[in-house]
């Protein structure tokens, strides 16, 4: 087993980041001009990183699969972004945000990284405000805040239900400014096929130009993956339909460790599956649980309209089970509780797979205008999808695949186990443990991109100031390009009978059924077998029309789905090995009498970092032991 060095700086928790900043090596402005950095993906994390690195003077090359980086799925983040400003005077502090995230992540995140994120949180709000993000304000003109799940203070900054859009566009605009200035270059409609490692260091990428179909080589002194999460492995999810895990898998195959891949967040408040044709699920922001009350009927097979069911016949099950946090329990808890009620036969709607989220009392107490002011655009979105008006009758919601806490293993510098390859934002694993708290994803993206990576990457590049521009004629580029072409040609040549999407759907069903909100040994074993069989079938019978040297969307999909099989295998392997329940990872064998997760700190208080050992050979487990010096490790309770 490799000993993973997380490179956490010495000193007390609150001094680590300052000490680190004071001791990192610097690259002079004259030398930054000679250094190239590739950034793959440009959502909130990638765009903020690319813009900040370009401002520092590096040459930045940005790659996105969409036509513009403004489309990245950070744009769909709704509810808000956390910071410890303590504008509400409710005793908030860096420590409290740190503590909430450590506890929310069920003691499976790294203390030093999380504390640092809390420390940079205020800078991110300052930055976004200065960039023109129109956050919600009080009548006084000062910034407004609201609460999110799993916390008891009000620290979330928001722009109605489109906070992610506003923050992502701010970062996008900062990047556009650097492109105009000639410090950053945008390569849009490019898909990453492989990572180039030369003499043990990340030195470039192979991409496919999605318009011409050409394979391109790009080199750099360092590579940053800001490629987001892979919740689309479940097929239906709140993610963009083209979100994928291919960049992470390319890095994994080249030696980057994949950490806690089974830790996948199933978000409790999404518009339920309506039919078989559905291609994606729509999120309803967690912020709605500030005012909405979640309930199901007390009787099974209730046929009455929800508005006709009297108060005493409603089961507000979150308030009943978790009186201290009520409707604002964290996501994993709320999702499992919804599933429990539906599985027990109390679910509502045609399928019985949904619960009510009701604003009746909030509208009665605060008035329709106040509720419209807070959630108007979310209510409109709900009406557009379902045809139901939530001002008049309760929303119906159900959990859906949303976020992946797991991802590429990184050290304190956000560097993966491949020197020179960094992973930021959702693509890495470090800050959310086994469950992410609401409004901390945008924070992580912006914190990583604006304030952390620009410091830590310099420390690495200080060694490279004498390294000339990397040539793309190196044999490693040659080999990777050849292999990528072979893989694409192989997909095109199968010429079987089934479409790519039909395989993706079947994979999603397996993952949702056996590796979703509740997991057990038998089911996971079965899933492993089913995924491997499906992969074999895919490589024998998939039908990918068209050619390589043209715009070919089916070929793009096929490449992504081929990676999803391997990723699914890794997720299940991780879920099988972790014989405990923690956060979003709920193993039925390990639960308390009242159905709460039973953690096993003695045997599993570590990050599982999986190492690639070859195609069809089982991954190797490496462990980063976690130690908690600044919080008391307790049973995570919201009761």
């Amino acid at each position, binding site marked *: 087993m490799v000993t993973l060095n997380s490179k956490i700086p010495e000193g007390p928790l609150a001094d680590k980041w300052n000490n680190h900043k004071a001791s990192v090596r610097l690259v002079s402005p004259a030398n930054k001009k000679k250094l190239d950095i590739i950034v793959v993906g440009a959502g909130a994390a990638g765009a903020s990183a690319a*813009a*900040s690195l370009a*401002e520092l003077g590096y040459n930045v090359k940005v790659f996105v699969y*969409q*036509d*513009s980086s*403004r*489309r990245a799925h950070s*744009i*769909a983040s709704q509810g808000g972004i956390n910071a410890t*400003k303590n*504008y509400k005077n409710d005793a908030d502090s860096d420590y409290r945000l740190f503590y909430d995230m450590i506890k929310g992540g069920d003691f499976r995140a790294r203390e030093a990284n999380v504390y640092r994120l809390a420390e940079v949180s205020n*800078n991110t709000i*300052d*930055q*976004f*405000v*200065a*960039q*023109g993000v*129109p*956050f919600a*304000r009080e009548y006084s*003109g*000062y*910034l407004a805040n609201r609460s999110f799940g799993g916390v008891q203070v009000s620290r979330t900054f928001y*722009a*109605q239900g*489109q906070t992610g859009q*506003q923050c992502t566009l701010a970062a996008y*605009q*900062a990047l*556009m*400014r650097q*492109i*105009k200035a000639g410090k950053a270059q*945008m390569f849009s409609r490019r898909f990453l096929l492989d990572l180039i490692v030369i003499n043990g260091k990340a030195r470039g990428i192979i991409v496919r130009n999605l*318009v011409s179909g050409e394979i391109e080589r790009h080199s750099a002194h360092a590579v940053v993956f800001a490629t987001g999460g892979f919740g689309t492995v479940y097929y239906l999810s709140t993610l*963009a*339909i*083209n979100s994928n895990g291919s960049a992470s898998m390319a890095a994994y195959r080249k030696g980057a460790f994949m950490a806690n891949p089974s830790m996948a967040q199933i978000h409790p408040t999404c518009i339920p599956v309506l039919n078989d*044709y559905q291609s*994606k699920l*729509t999120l309803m922001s967690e912020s709605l649980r500030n005012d909405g009350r979640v309930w199901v009927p007390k009787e099974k097979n209730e046929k009455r309209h929800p508005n006709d069911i009297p108060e005493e016949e409603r089961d507000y099950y979150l308030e009943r089970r978790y009186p201290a946090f009520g409707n604002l329990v964290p996501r994993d808890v709320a999702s499992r509780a919804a599933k429990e009620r539906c599985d027990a036969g109390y679910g509502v709607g045609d399928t019985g797979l949904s619960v009510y989220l009701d604003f009746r009392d909030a509208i009665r107490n605060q008035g329709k205008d106040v509720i419209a002011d807070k959630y108007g655009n979310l209510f*409109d*979105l709900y009406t*557009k*999808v379902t045809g139901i008006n939530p001002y008049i009758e309760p929303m119906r919601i159900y959990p859906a695949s949303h976020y992946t806490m797991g991802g590429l293993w990184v050290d304190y510098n956000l560097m993966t186990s491949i020197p020179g390859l960094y992973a930021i934002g959702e693509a890495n694993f470090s800050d959310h443990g086994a469950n992410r708290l609401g409004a901390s994803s945008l924070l992580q993206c912006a914190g990583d991109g*604006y*304030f952390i990576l620009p410091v830590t990457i310099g420390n690495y590049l200080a060694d490279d100031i004498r390294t000339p521009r990397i040539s793309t004629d190196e044999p490693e580029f040659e080999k990777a390009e050849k292999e990528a072409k072979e893989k694409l040609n192989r997909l095109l040549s199968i010429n079987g*009978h089934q*479409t790519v*999407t039909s395989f993706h759907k079947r994979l999603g069903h397996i993952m949702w059924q056996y590796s979703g909100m509740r997991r057990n040994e038998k089911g996971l074993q079965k899933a492993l077998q089913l995924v491997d069989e499906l992969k074999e079938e895919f490589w024998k019978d998939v*039908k990918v*029309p*068209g050619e390589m040297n*043209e*715009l070919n*969307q*089916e070929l793009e999909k096929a490449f992504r789905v081929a990676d999803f099989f391997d990723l699914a295998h890794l997720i299940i392997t991780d879920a099988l090995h972790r014989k405990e329940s923690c956060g979003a990872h709920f193993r039925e064998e390990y639960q308390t009498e009242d159905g709460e997760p039973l953690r096993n700190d003695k045997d599993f208080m570590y990050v599982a970092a999986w190492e690639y050992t070859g195609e069809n050979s089982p991954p190797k487990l490496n462990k980063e032991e976690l130690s908690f010096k600044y919080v008391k490790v307790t049973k995570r309770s919201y009761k």
Partner: protein
Amino acid sequence: MNITLNIWRQIDSQDKGKFVEYKLDNVSSEMTFLEMLDSLNDKLIREGKDPIAYDSDCREGICGMCGLYINGRPNGPQKGVTTCQLSMSVFKDGEKIIVEPWRSKAFPVIKDLIVDRTAFDKLIQAGGFISVNTGAAPEANAIPIKKEKAERAFDAGICIGCGTCVATCKNASAMLFVSAKVSQFALLPQGQVEAKERVQKMIKAMDELGFGNCTNTGACEAECPKEISLSNIAHLNREFYKAKVK
């Protein structure tokens, strides 16, 4: 229901392109428009035919990647929706549906229904930002901003850059897109410093990129899936004249 589709097919930017007719049976009214196209592609692939190329990503009306001309209207007949949010329930059994890409000089067709909208990125590059480097920001609450102003800035800032306004405009003008950004920043104190340069540079870029001029028809506002207000254009005009006289 059963429908007949007349879809624009164009191999690449050089190809002349043409309409091709497709019949699709058993379409559910519960489908979204793009899910209907997904199912048509599924059928075409099974039949060994070339599937139709179209863009989409978030499929919840926020990324701005989709956008098709449907029966002569951008994003179809429903008001205030993107193409991905358009429901098949608005169509009738036996209906003939014509599907085209955005058509404007600044947005050349790449293939079938996919267009190149990098001109929008170039407009933002021309001045659609506030020039504050990372780390240079003052304390967020240092400048109070009237709630009503912040909300108006938000209403302008929610533009998704889909290109509907350009596609529907008889002049292919990008005035609504540009004015939303100019207006958002002109409303905020942070945006004041560069207000004059911003409006002038963005208008100049709009001309250079092949977008047409605004003649105040208002089609953009009527068709905008985010219902961005025409008042932003009035605001832009004020900013433009202000910049000229100063």
